[in-house]
């Protein structure tokens, strides 16, 4: 009978992360990517895997407050970190984050696959640059690919979000409030 030779298993590591305010501890293989820890072990499937090449940005999360591609970070590298995923953007009552509200109003998504990553990349952009120009928004989302929209409404959503966040415009578009009242 053929003997099957198995490689010795690498030591598993215990990783502690605080995700959207809740602390979790899980055992991981060194080669486990952060995106899979979030999706498969924590059930937070809003963060997406869209490519194999670290280009598409669908996996973008906030790690210690900074937007990063979670497919290009090992879970072990994130030990001890605070992470915010798209699930952490609406508030406890379900009220959308201003960026999400802007995406709704400006039709910034079609299939929605890139959207969590886009929202988080835009969150980073607006914290770094609260009043970006159209060009600055486009540069700010260079790490996020969209196959549906052609980016126009994503840019509009970002610009609208910046006005909502700075208080220049109300959280909900007035035209929508009027339409609802009819």
């Amino acid at each position, binding site marked *: 009978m053929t003997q099957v030779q198995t490689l010795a298993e*690498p030591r598993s590591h215990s990783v502690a992360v605080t995700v959207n305010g809740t602390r979790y501890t899980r055992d991981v293989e060194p080669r486990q990517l952060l995106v899979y820890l979030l999706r498969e072990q924590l059930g937070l499937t809003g963060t997406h895997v869209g490519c194999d090449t670290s280009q598409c940005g669908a996996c973008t999360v906030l790690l210690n407050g900074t*937007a*990063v*591609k979670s*497919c*290009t970070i090992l879970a072990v590298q994130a030990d001890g970190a605070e992470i915010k995923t798209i699930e952490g953007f609406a508030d406890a009552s379900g009220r959308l984050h201003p960026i999400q509200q802007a995406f709704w109003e400006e039709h910034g998504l079609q299939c929605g696959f890139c959207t969590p990553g886009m929202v988080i*990349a835009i969150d980073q*952009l607006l914290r770094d640059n609260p009043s970006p120009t159209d060009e600055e928004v486009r540069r700010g989302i260079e*790490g996020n690919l969209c196959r549906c929209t052609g980016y126009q409404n994503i840019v509009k959503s970002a610009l609208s979000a910046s006005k909502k966040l700075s208080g220049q415009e109300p959280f909900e578009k007035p035209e929508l409030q009027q339409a609802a009242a009819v």
Partner: protein
Amino acid sequence: MFPAKFEYAAPSTVEEALALLKQGNGDAKIIAGGHSLLPLMKLRLAQPKLLVDIGRITGLSYIRTEGGNVLVGALATYRDILQSPDVHRGAPVLAEAAHEVGDPQVRARGTLAGSLAHGDPAADMPAVVLALEASIHAVGPDGERDLPIDNFFVDMLTTLLGEHELITQVSIPVQSPGTGAAYLKFDQPASHYALAGACARITLADGTISQARIGVTGVGTKAYRPTAVEEALVGKAPTEDAIKQACQSAAEGIDVQGDIHASPDYRAHLARVLTRRAVVKAAERARG
């Protein structure tokens, strides 16, 4: 895909990291930001048996000015570089180029030292450090040494860094008066890697070019200095014609690469165009 199996260690000191590298006996790799190494491992083009994560070592993410140089610690990210007053004052083109690397998420993790140790033929930083006459400080089992940049990039993904060595600092001379530098790149739109990128550092004296250093990336199997262009520029007044003439040889003698993104002819053409534009911009800034 996800990487092949490996062991992982996160040392807290450089000494521990070196010991782990040595233990790995040629099968261990350093990981810092991981944004060059992990993509390769996910495609299984790299399969190290041990990853030594230097990301937990404190005291390596500094950026400061000392002794006429801007000193960039091994763990300083492109985002750190972009936000550094020392870089903006002493080596502004480093910030200009850092802004061109990848995308905002990549810039939050990737490091300058990592890019240089990795030696990707289309990475931005090798071209920049060649033009800026940087020096690399490495530590290894045989001690510490300073590696001048000129022969550092040997071939595709191959540098002078020893197998058991670790870069701890990159040092860039503070830009002197009468000198200007610029980095320009033509990138592949999804990956943002350079199909060609050129960094030029030009010094003017009495209205003519007294010094020219250029680094070109994306074109050959490694970043290189087009020395024929540099020599042709020295002594000339920085006119559009003189610069255009001099930059004709930007890809000469180079094993110009072709792939699905660009043919060798197109890359050679981009090298000439971008070198010319970088020199023009650097000379304008030198006039300042």
